């Protein structure tokens, strides 16, 4: 993924920040952080199409943390030039990121598939809806995904 994060880090030190703990046990309530962020961004007067991109990308990441990593944290940073989403978990990690990024690749179990997830489209959607995306993952340690949407 894209690697220039110096701008991203700078963005994180200014502007607004929202923090969420994403519960790994409650699948039905998953997505609450994303829905809340959508609300917050609307109040800030962010353009609807940008809100849509940010909230879908965040939701896909949030659901992934619930399904594949047993939960994690989500932080959203907003300043005048961009919105940055950082999703951090201590799950199993992703052994092959290139493969995970491919449309259709999924390790989701049948129980999850029966709910409509597990199409292997989440990570590709996150990439498509954001301007920059970086995945850092270590097997047995966890996964950190940073996404940026320019304003």
């Amino acid at each position, binding site marked *: 993924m894209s690697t220039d994060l110096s701008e991203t880090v700078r963005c994180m030190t200014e502007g607004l920040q929202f923090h969420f703990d994403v519960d790994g046990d409650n699948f039905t309530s998953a997505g609450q952080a994303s829905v809340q962020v959508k609300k917050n961004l609307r109040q800030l007067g962010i353009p609807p199409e940008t809100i*849509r991109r940010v909230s879908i990308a965040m939701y896909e990441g949030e659901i992934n943390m619930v399904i594949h990593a047993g939960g994690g944290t989500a932080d959203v940073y907003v300043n005048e030039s961009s919105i940055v989403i950082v999703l951090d978990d201590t799950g199993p990690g992703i052994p092959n990121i290139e493969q995970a990024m491919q449309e259709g690749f999924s390790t989701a179990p049948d129980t999850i598939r029966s*709910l409509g997830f597990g199409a292997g489209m989440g990570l590709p959607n996150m990439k498509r809806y954001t301007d920059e995306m970086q995945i850092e993952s270590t097997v047995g340690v966890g996964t950190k995904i940073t996404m940026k949407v320019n304003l």
Partner: protein
Amino acid sequence: MTVRELAAQLSLRELAMPDGDREVEGGYTGDLLSWVMGRAQSGDAWITIMSNLNIVAVASLADVACVILAEDVVPEQDVVKTAMAKGVNLLGAKESSFALSAAVAKAVQ
């Protein structure tokens, strides 16, 4: 055409209609949630047989105009209540996804 008008024209069952004046601009049919989030457009009528609570969040974030549950599927517990609370229009019909897609396409032309 608004969601309310669409529901009347196609005789759809109203399960939750917190925003009946929302304009329907097109449609998307599918049950795999990440496909819906990747392909549906804002303002679409989303036709599906998925009935679990996650459809409410997906509909809200994808900003579709309404969800139409096909084949008379019964929404699971809390779906109607949550749809109401989150401002998501939820309709039901006995027709198949195919038949509903054709009807919606004709109606919004």
